[in-house]
């Protein structure tokens, strides 16, 4: 079967913050760059980020230091974030944030005219010794919206070629495993096309939709991780899923940590500010894994609110109408729409909700995808032609738990870094790997499978079942036997999904076809998560087990590496060698 080929220097898959920062970098330098996005770029999930972008720009505190931010991030990661990558992000961060201002991002301002910064969870001054810091740069509580629109606008200005509402379905590799581009579907016409490029950058975002309850957009289906796993590439720390403390109970809609940064706090059904018991110093601004677990303990101990005792409350009314309407206007809207609650008057019902995938495709700071870990002796081996940035990547700057406000920084810093690196490679002459017809044909197999399906279960029923397995077996608290059951259920689901049925075979804007292809990706991410979670026999960061309640530095101060071919979990060393500062040694993590 021969299909149309479209050729570029570089293609970026995904139109969120990381993808558009990468494409902007390359387009500015005059390289022929395409951005392929399954939605119009400003509909990407970055748009939902609320509270801000954490970065030591020294506005709120003129003495702020990126090394303090680095310390917080290493501690937040529960010591399995790579210190060279965290160092790079925190150090380069201010430059990347000032660039966003120069591009026009409408940050909120201080009286001095500088960017407004608010306190967020897990932030400190002076390496944890100087109390709470205010380091999160904000555009009210719509920072993601402001950032995403600004990046789209700059890409328009700089001539990035957009393929909007095109769905990347599969990686195309040659016989040696070098990446040659992707197969993508023009959703509007249904046509399948081969995009050929020297560099393929995955910026496909997260996969929160593997869970029944998530803050993530409906489009967050792990397409990049799915494609990588099907191509036989490993994923790292995929058991590490962040549950955000404050999703609106029932709806799953996010309520920013900035609410607690501005002075809001959590209460149980008795009105008690319970975080004082769990984190006496940082209280409600402890890091997210700690707060989410504390909330679940309150609920499990019978102090949850509501008829089913299944949530707690976020109290904001004491901040006053003026602060709420100027600093948190979006939250007021969301609470009224989705909780029928006006935060000016009453507390918002909230519950920990799946929010962020810390794991993903392992990369170095340039976004180069890693296929084999170097370990002690060797160097990392890279997948030629493949890069990953943003949530789909695991650099790793978040380790076992991401700090609030660090995801937007991750997007712009590493989107930019990958762009700079690829530019440089293109100037030096980068190889275009050429696939054979058989290679392309192989990449088309999955699309063909659905197009030719007859009989079998429906996509929506299987998706629901998968989401409930993940919710019930791999939630905030985990247990070996329960996870083993979950792994077995997923094996059964894999069998059934491989025979599932797409009834509507029409071409124009067939969203059922896209949902079917997304289901395959959800399954890949879910299975990798399940096996990795069962395999990591300790509790660290967001991964918390009843049967292994303690952190085990002797055996697990390392990344997990899931190998999709053997379906086995391996280990990879964490980087403890920052270039300009001393190593932050692991210690007990208290807030």
């Amino acid at each position, binding site marked *: 079967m021969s299909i149309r080929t479209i050729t570029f220097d570089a293609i970026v898959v995904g139109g969120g913050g990381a993808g558009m920062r990468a494409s902007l970098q390359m387009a500015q330098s005059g390289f022929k760059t395409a951005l392929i996005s399954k*939605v119009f770029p400003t509909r990407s999930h970055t*748009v939902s980020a609320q509270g801000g972008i954490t970065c030591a720009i020294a506005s709120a505190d003129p003495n702020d230091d990126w090394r303090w931010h680095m310390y917080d991030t290493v501690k937040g990661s529960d010591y399995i974030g790579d210190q060279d990558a965290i160092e790079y992000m925190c150090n380069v961060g201010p430059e990347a944030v000032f660039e966003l201002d120069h591009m026009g991002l409408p940050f909120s*301002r201080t009286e001095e005219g500088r*960017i407004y910064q608010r306190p967020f969870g897990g932030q400190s001054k002076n390496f944890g010794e100087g109390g709470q810091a205010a380091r999160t740069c904000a555009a009210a509580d719509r920072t993601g919206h402001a950032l995403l629109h600004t990046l789209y606008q700059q890409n328009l*200005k700089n001539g990035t070629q957009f393929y909007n509402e095109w769905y990347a379905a599969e990686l195309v590799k040659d016989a040696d495993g070098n990446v040659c581009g992707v197969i993508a579907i023009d959703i509007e016409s249904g046509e399948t096309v081969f995009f050929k490029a020297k560099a393929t950058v995955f910026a496909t975002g997260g996969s929160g939709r593997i869970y029944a309850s998530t803050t993530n957009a409906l489009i967050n289906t792990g397409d990049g991780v799915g494609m990588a796993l099907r191509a036989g590439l490993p994923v790292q720390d995929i058991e590490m899923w962040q549950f955000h403390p404050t999703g609106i109970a029932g709806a799953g809609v996010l309520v920013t940590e900035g609410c607690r940064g501005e002075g809001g706090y959590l209460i149980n059904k008795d009105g008690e500010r319970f975080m004082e018991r769990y984190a006496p110093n940082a209280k409600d601004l402890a890091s997210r894994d700690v707060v989410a677990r504390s909330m679940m303990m309150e609920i499990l101990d019978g102090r949850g609110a509501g008829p089913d005792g299944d949530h707690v409350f976020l109290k904001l009314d004491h901040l006053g109408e003026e602060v709420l309407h100027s600093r948190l206007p979006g939250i007021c809207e969301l609470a009224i729409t989705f909780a029928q609650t006006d935060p000016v008057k009453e507390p918002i019902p909230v519950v920990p909700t799946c929010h962020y995938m810390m794991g993903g495709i392992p990369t170095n700071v340039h976004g180069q995808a890693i296929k084999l870990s170097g370990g002690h002796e060797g160097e990392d081996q890279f997948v030629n032609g493949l890069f990953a940035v943003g949530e789909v990547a695991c650099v790793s700057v978040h380790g076992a738990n991401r700090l609030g406000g660090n995801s937007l920084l991750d997007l712009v810093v590493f989107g930019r870094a990958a762009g700079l690196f690829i530019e440089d490679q293109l100037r030096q002459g980068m190889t275009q790997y050429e696939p054979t017809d058989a290679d392309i044909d192989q990449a088309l197999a999955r699309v063909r499978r659905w197009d030719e399906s007859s009989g079998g279960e429906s996509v929506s029923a299987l998706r629901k079942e998968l989401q409930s397995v993940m919710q019930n077996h791999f939630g905030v608290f985990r247990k070996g036997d329960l996870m083993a059951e979950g792994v077995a259920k997923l094996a059964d689901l894999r069998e059934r999904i491989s025979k599932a049925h797409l009834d509507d075979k029409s071409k*124009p804007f067939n969203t059922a076809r896209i949902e079917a292809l997304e289901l395959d990706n959800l399954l890949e991410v879910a299975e990798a998560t399940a096996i990795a979670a069962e395999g990591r026999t300790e509790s660290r960061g967001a991964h918390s087990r009843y049967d292994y309640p303690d952190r085990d530095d002797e055996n697990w101060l390392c990344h997990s590496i899931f190998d999709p071919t053997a379906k086995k979990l391996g280990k990879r060393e964490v980087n403890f060698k920052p270039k300009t500062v001393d190593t932050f040694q692991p210690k007990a993590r208290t807030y």
Partner: protein
Amino acid sequence: MKVSIYRYNPETDREPSMKEYEVDTQGKDLMVLDILALVKEQDESMSYRRSCREGVCGSDGMNMNGKNGLACITPLSQVAPGVLEGKKPLILRPLPGLPVIRDLVVDMGMFYNQYEKVQPFLQNNTPAPAIERLQTPEDRAKLDGLYECILCACCSTSCPSFWWNPDKFLGPAALLQSYRFLADSRDNATEERLSKLDDPFSLFRCHGIMNCVSVCPKGLNPTRAIGHIRSMLLERGI
């Protein structure tokens, strides 16, 4: 409850039609987007756009019982009296005035073209400082009510002037964005921006009927922004 949805698939249908569905809401005041998901479980061939499901991405603008809005933040009780109770059907159509690709999915090309025409990006030809460009809170406050636009097209597709001249009249969404940059103290392309708007169509086809204001799901006021640009053009002419 009864749901009536505009259906058209160019591959199989010679003309569009309305198709009726029966959906069990168990009496709950669901969002219109939840209803669409229930319909799609019955009939996967019904296409619509959606992403964030919380009113910030702007994917699911559509016409609900005669009024444009976002399906994900419009509860049944707010569509029209009687819809929640099942006394009246929920009637869903694509945004008016744009070509239909399929079912509730419209071709947004003309809408995006007008957006691009206003050069929706900051322009400043002075060298950038080593830190951010300073801006007072008062100057920053001028952008409130402008930068929040999510490009859902509810406003422009409710505007008769846009229906009539979608290629020449920029429409409320694009003009709101135009003013967002005219009002930004960090932008210094004011003269160039204004000169591009100074013709009988681009802006002056707005007759101030404020349909845009009444449908904007983010509570923004494009008519006011257009009024500000009008004043700037007049001052410039004197």
